[in-house]
């Protein structure tokens, strides 16, 4: 007699706690390390407010590192979750959060904002957000109606929109010759350094409901993987769920990108990585991506700030250099089982 399958919610709680225990030290490390040095005890004092902190370190920890670490957490969570959802929605393992035109649209918006001389926040951020929502609307228009549920149409439209946007971006970059070119390049490479605490709280307010909604839809995501027909005849409103997933995820990724530019390689690697470790059930993967993806980017960002001698390197380099080999290793291990 086989023992009954353990309840999903028990597994969920266990994994959530485990990942939380991974996240908290990651956050602490992120606050301890920076381009001006690594200080454990002093930062611990600064956090617990035990009075013997020198005010410069206090400023550095709370006003420079804290918003940055928080932003890294939110961005890591969002990109991982975005990749997870699009991989399920489009039933394609190469899907990543920018695939439905978000990278192209937001980049064009940001570049136009930078060229117009707008300030980083809110000007350029709003422009980037507007750009990515515009491309989303274009894609929705192109795939409107029944055909949206056919997964390849969404994917193809996204790829085409991104390709077109790339051309526009190349053109805009080629005609820019002054200092604004630097701003554009840094935006395109992704940059977690440009936000203050207040701005990060605003982002959290925008993202939190999205996380909740996507968690509620996680069971439906499982069923979507079985194909339209089975999903629908098992009680899922596939059109409604598809639309909800698409809009929520696009909104969430757009908001994130408008804060920090295009940080790559997180949304592709983390969901696969977690899926190899934890299995394909989205009810577990959604919170895992939020916590695990967040921890991943916090750690990568910390390394990006500490490793190079001359200031920081773009965090996208670390996520790729860490993510790719790790992923290949896991892939080999899973194949051999």
């Amino acid at each position: 007699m086989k023992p009954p399958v353990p309840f999903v919610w028990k597994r969920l709680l266990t994994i959530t706690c485990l990942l939380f225990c991974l996240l908290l030290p990651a956050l602490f490390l992120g606050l301890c390390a920076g381009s001006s040095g690594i200080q454990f005890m002093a930062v611990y004092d600064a956090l617990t407010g035990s009075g013997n902190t020198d005010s410069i370190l206090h400023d550095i920890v709370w006003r420079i590192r804290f918003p940055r670490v928080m932003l890294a957490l939110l961005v890591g969570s969002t990109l991982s979750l975005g990749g997870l959802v699009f991989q399920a929605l489009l039933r394609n393992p190469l899907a990543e959060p920018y695939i439905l035109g978000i990278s192209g649209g937001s980049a064009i918006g940001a570049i136009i904002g930078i060229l117009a001389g707008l300030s980083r926040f809110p000007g350029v951020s709003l422009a980037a957000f507007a750009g990515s929502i515009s491309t989303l609307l274009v894609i929705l228009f192109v795939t409107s109606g029944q055909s949206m549920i056919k997964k390849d149409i969404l994917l193809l439209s996204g790829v085409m929109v991104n390709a077109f946007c790339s051309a526009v971006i190349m053109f805009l970059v080629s005609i820019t010759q002054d200092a604004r070119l630097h701003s554009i390049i840094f935006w395109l490479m992704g940059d977690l350094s440009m936000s203050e605490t207040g701005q990060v709280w605003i982002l959290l307010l925008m993202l939190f409901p999205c996380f909740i909604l996507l968690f509620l839809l996680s069971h439906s995501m499982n069923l979507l993987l079985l194909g339209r027909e089975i999903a629908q005849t098992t009680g899922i409103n596939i059109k409604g769920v598809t639309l909800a997933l698409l809009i929520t995820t696009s909104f969430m990724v757009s908001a994130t990108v408008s804060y920090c530019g295009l940080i790559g390689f997180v949304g592709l690697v983390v969901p696969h990585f977690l899926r190899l470790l934890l299995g394909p059930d989205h009810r577990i993967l959604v919170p895992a991506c939020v916590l695990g993806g967040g921890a991943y980017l916090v750690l990568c960002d910390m390394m990006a700030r500490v490793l190079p001698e001359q200031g920081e390197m773009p965090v996208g380099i670390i996520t790729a250099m860490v993510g790719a080999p790790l992923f290949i290793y896991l892939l080999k291990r899973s194949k051999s089982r």
Partner: protein
Amino acid sequence: MTAVDIQHITHFYGNRPVLDDISLSIRTGTFFTILGPNGSGKTTLMKTISGIENPQTGLVKIMGRPLQNYTRKNLAKTIAFLPQTIPVDFQFTVTELILMGRAPHQGILGLEDQNDLKIADEAMKFVGVEHLAERRLDRLSGGERQRIYIAKALCQEPRIILLDEPTASLDLAHQIHIMDLMERLKTEKGVTVVMVSHDVNLAAMYAECLLLLKEGKIVKTGSPNDVLTKHTLEKTYDCTLFIDKNPLGDFPRVALVPNKFKDKQEKDLG
């Protein structure tokens, strides 16, 4: 009591009518099989009954209520559907998949309780896949997968089960196994079985009622003896056939006639 009642449905794809003024009735607890050549509209009919496709005209009633009156979940508790091809690009285990069949009875997160686990367990036993419980679905054979999907369908606790060519790519043993499973479903649980089949003989052996479709229209409906006559079948399928009485029981046996035997057949009969 009528499980499925279809009145004058017509379904167009573009300008072409795939179903042309179809009316039929399926009584509860019967084993109903739909036959017909390719393109006759069998799959579209199944999709119409299950609510996946909407006919342009006509009415579909399930268990006496019009299809539109069902909520999606309630419909899923009444009808389970197994399409012809199911994607296998996921890594769920057998148990996880079967438990997904409980979705119509669960909340939005599908968190399963003791009752769900019990029903899933019984479904696994019924189709005979308990030994595969922890295996990954994409590593099993077609026949095993088919049984697992039936177990999942059973978890929906449906009154009607629709299967679109369930034995199409299975070997002989698995074909019979699936058909016997359907028979048991009907007799032990009173589930109405509606199946599309391309295998005329299997249909003859199991179905109580047959529907023969051609180009979206009903050719004939009735018991196997009524429907599977040489004249009807040859006209529908447009090929030469040899039909005799199956030694196993009171139903016909249909054989294809290759060209090289056509003259011999005529000589024997004529």
